């Protein structure tokens, strides 16, 4: 079962998205606190990362860059509720920094899971699903 590292500081969002991913057959490692140490410790163990951007303890964009540096093969999905300060577009920045997919909140968990599926198969986030 593929393991996904989910980094999100909002407890309810964390619960809902983790549940959705487990329902879809993935194993989820939840990281709400602990900062970069927890993230770095978990990176070798997982097959994909889903991370929020604006969090009190950890900067999502740092997670993205660290993940890409340590494990360039690891797909990273960035999600965001929007900046707390006006005029910041974090998702655009994440794209520029190498995120494999971006989702603004509130997202449809079905789209997130479908995208994770595609990325794990080695495709890109925008691959059109083929039925066979």
């Amino acid at each position: 079962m593929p393991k996904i590292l989910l980094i999100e500081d909002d407890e309810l969002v964390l619960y809902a998205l983790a549940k959705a991913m487990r329902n879809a057959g993935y194993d989820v490692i939840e990281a709400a606190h602990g900062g970069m140490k927890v993230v770095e410790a978990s990176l070798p163990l997982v097959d994909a990362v889903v991370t929020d951007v604006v969090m009190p303890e950890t900067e999502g964009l740092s997670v993205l860059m660290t993940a890409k540096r340590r494990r360039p093969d690891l797909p990273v999905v960035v999600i965001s509720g929007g900046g707390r300060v006006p005029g910041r577009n974090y998702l655009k920045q994440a794209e520029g920094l190498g995120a494999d997919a971006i989702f603004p909140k509130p997202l449809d968990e079905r789209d997130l899971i479908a995208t994770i599926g595609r990325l794990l198969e080695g495709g890109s986030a925008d691959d059109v699903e083929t039925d066979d």
Partner: protein
Amino acid sequence: MDLTNRFLVNRASFWALIGLWAVVSVFVGAVLVSFDAFDTFYAITREHEDWELDEYVIIAFIFLIGCVLILATVSARSLVVLQREIEARTSAERELAVARHLQSLGTLTAGLAHSANNLMQPILTLTRMTSESLSDKPEAQQDLRYVLQAAQKAARLFEDVLAASRSKQEGAQFADLVRALKSSAPLVRTALPSSVEVTFDLPNDPLYVGLNRTEILDILLALASNSADAMEKRIGAIRFLVEQVDGDGGNVRMVVEDDGSGIPEDVIDRVYDPFFTTKEVGKGTGLGLSVVFGLTQKAGGKMSVENRPENGTRIEIILPLATEVPTAAKDGG
């Protein structure tokens, strides 16, 4: 032009000064009379005609009068400079207050958006998932679908309302005043109690001014809430009128009239002061009209406030028409 106002002395203290000088003059005159001053002086000068005292006295007088004129001119010019400095400082303070106000509004909005988005996530996700798992309980499943519908509408509503205040408009410099007022009217009506009647009298053609949609909305809300606050028991009518004046390439006039209690005469000049308010503590910051004034100035316009003879206040804003509006800068929204 009222000289006393230009010279920073208000009417009352100017006349008090004149009155005081009149009293002093009378007193000095009385003293001179008691000493029979002029005759004594005349006798001395006749006794000593060779001293050329007459001429010295004349020279002294000419010199004294010259000094007085110089002093008066210098004082007048200093006062004018001081007046200009004070105006510059007040206008800078006003701009700062407006900027702070708008900035904190933007931050508030962004924070709200972030929270709203995070709150919608578990609502939508968990409702969808639970609904799917209830195929054996069709009624419960349907109920959850309704919950989802309502939640999705709420999400869209958040998006619309927050988008209206978001600084998507930060780059835009021009907007069609007529269209901005038309689309903001429902928002204004929502912001006021239903006992206040708001009417808009707008022309059919677009009128572009040097303000963007957000700024126009800010002006509208400030004017409307100021008018509403001046109404007894919050019952009354506010009327907005927009028309083009002074021909093509001219100006736009926006008039706001209400039938509230008006602005007391002694405070009417202070309404532009960013922190002046007659509202009780805790009931509004008084920032309203100062915001309007700051934005009007930014757009190169003029604003005047006066009380209506019948009842209430009339605020008139004249803004120059933006004639050279590059199409890309035109706010389509």
